[in-house]
């Protein structure tokens, strides 16, 4: 999916650690899952790599639905990364 755009959103302590709310990224075609996307972000965006390493317990949502590291990501998706939720 080279040339395509994925919107990556961060929340809570992860947003603070990344220093950004949203990144619009164009990963190479080999990046087809959440886990691969996180690995690629880590190499391309040092601040994201440091933030992810500092936040090992994470949840992920794709297009506002909870997902897992294995879940596929595709062009046009919004992928949200955040620490375990603590509402209620």
């Amino acid at each position: 999916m080279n040339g395509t755009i994925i919107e990556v959103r961060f929340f809570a302590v992860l947003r603070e650690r990344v220093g950004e709310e949203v990144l619009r990224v164009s990963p190479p075609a080999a990046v087809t899952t959440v886990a691969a996307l996180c690995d690629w972000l880590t190499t391309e965006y040092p601040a994201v790599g440091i933030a992810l390493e500092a936040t090992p317990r994470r949840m992920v949502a794709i297009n506002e639905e909870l997902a897992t590291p294995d879940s596929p990501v595709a062009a046009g998706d919004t992928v949200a990364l955040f620490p375990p939720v603590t509402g209620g």
Partner: protein
Amino acid sequence: MTAINAETDIRVAIIAEPLEGVSSVEGQDGRSGAEVRFSGRVRDESGRVRALFLEHYPGMTENALTRIAEHARERWPLNAIEIIHRIGEIQVGEEIVRVVVWAGHRHAAFEACAFLMDILKSQVPLWKKELNDDGWHWVEARERDAEAAARWMGAASERAR
């Protein structure tokens, strides 16, 4: 799963004002013999906590709350569900969340209300910061909240029959 009561009314809201000023629907329709209402409030933790701040994922939060209410009405015969969650800064003693369940009979209402809170705490994108004497700190998720939610998942196939 079978939809036991597809006509269960669902109302969800994310509100940045005190919930104390928000009145809940009265279940005076003659169908609901049981109304169970949960209010989660800010504890001061023996003076350690001065306030909370709640962040959320706009859009996804409302969808996730609607989704868990839909799950509840598939599992229990309910007449109505209301879930209101507050965001922003919340003072000690104030309501963070209110879940109200109306049903014909009490056991369904109690179980569904407890279920909704357990699932909300582990699946809805909301995050708490607490204000201590030395500033704001993110609240860590508690293992027991994840376990409470997991218990309902394990019981799902059995209970849904």
